[in-house]
């Protein structure tokens, strides 16, 4: 039913990679941040900080993860925490690596 990639071996989220929100995912703003629902695998996930929502929404338009973090004005000291959160989102296919021509793998 799900068109998700094999969730047992998710790609590691790295700062120098382009990522994007999955096409089957909808984000709904909430007072604490947002709810993310994946219409394919039926997973519901909570983005517990508005800054994380900004980062996730910004992924698709940023050349890489680092740029999305910078665009959302996340202090660099907090990037490891955000990377871990993004890794969690990748595990349930909420975000996916973006295939761009010429992008470094």
């Amino acid at each position, binding site marked *: 039913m799900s068109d998700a990639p094999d969730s047992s071996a998710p790609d590691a989220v790295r700062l120098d990679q382009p990522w994007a929100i999955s096409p089957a995912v*909808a984000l709904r703003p909430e007072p*604490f941040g947002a*709810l993310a629902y994946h*219409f394919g695998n039926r997973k*519901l996930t*909570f983005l*517990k900080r508005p800054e994380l929502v900004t980062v996730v929404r910004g992924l698709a338009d940023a050349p890489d993860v680092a740029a999305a973090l910078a665009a959302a004005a996340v202090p660099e000291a907090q990037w490891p925490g955000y990377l871990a959160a993004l890794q969690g989102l990748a595990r349930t296919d909420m975000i996916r690596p973006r295939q761009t021509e010429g992008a470094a793998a």
Partner: protein
Amino acid sequence: MTIAPERPGTGAGPSTGPSTRIGQLLPTTGDRTPRGDRLVDQFELGLDAPICLTWELTYACNLECAHCLSSSGRRDPRELSTDQAKAVIDELQRMQVFYINIGGGEPTIRPDFWELLEYSIEHNVGVKFSTNGVRLSEERAAFLASPAMNGYVDIQISLDGATAEVNDYVRGPGSFDTAIRALENLQAAGFSDAKISVVCTRQNIGQLDEFKAIADKYGAMLRLTRLRPSGRGADVWDELHPLPEQQRELYDWLMANGENILTGDSFFHLAAFGESLPGLNLCGAGRVVCLIDPIGDVYACPFAIHDNFHAGNILTDGGFQQVWQKSELFQDLRAPQTGGACAKCSFFDACRGGCMAAKFFTGLPLDGPDPECVQGYGESALASMNAAGGRVIPESSQDHSKKNPTRNQPVMLQLGRRPDDLEASLQPRGMPVSACAESPLAGFDPGTGALGGGGGCASGACGC
């Protein structure tokens, strides 16, 4: 699951003491800042739109299950029209309600059910619907498995026994076969991951492995939920609800098999056994959950169809969003609660006092223990209320049960106990009043070929 970078907890805000207005339902602290940084603390304050919205499309049903939580049977003449139902779906799409749980009654016997299903999916509102399977023919199964549904539909087939004997006892004759046929049709059509939805009862807790085997056989998932004393369930709860040792059996089984078993976050009262089961583990009524009934009334949760939990009506109170965000009842439910008598219990953080509907419909105070509290506080509360002159069980506010029994009605016959004094109980209580009362053929004389007119026996010999 929670995805959040670490940050220091905000700690508890100031408490301003109990509020009397909000206290109509539950004692609260009157404080609306989250008590902690856990997501559950945020959820207690409510969301902009529900996560889990149940919509009972009709009170009409072909079955008359003994424990029906919505007392369904007859269609309500005020039922929302097709256009009104579509307007509800439009609003849910605007609110970004990701999916709806459609139930009833039996939703598939509404003639426009399939039209509404397609409409909802076209409008990005996923559908999970519960059915007894009566309309899931081969053709319908093929339609549900077709690309038109885009994989956005989930189907829950209700089955409350792993054998016809146990299932039909509460759901009525033939209902086991109907459900199995529906599962066969879905499997044959290639519909994957149908759900078998089981209400756990005293009679079927021992069949959990058999349920799992049925699910595996049909490529389905198993979904176990808790029996609530709601609707007609109030009438049979004493007989059907799992015994304390069965609750432990259920908990152990869920801990062992939990990964692939759905529970609808139903058993959070079992968390007080120790480790929490997967899920939010809080009462979501009016906070993340609510119910729209067939006539557009909004209630705090699917198990609380009662005036006391009625938040408003989508037709007369300005639409669903208005009711969800503004109703006084929901505001009250979102206010942090003190936990009452339960707050002293060391397991309060695990079970949070249990299920509001289960307390209400067994006549227990809402800030007291759940009637099935696994620490035994519910049982003692019930016993002490009984001893103190009896509990008052709330009368139901609405009942769409069929007025006359039909052939589908379950017959909950039980073998009686042997009387203490068998001899005495077998003695006739008196002489037969007349031959008529004893013999169905009294006074019939084949020779005359008539029983006589005007009533009574033809012979007149008996004096009737």
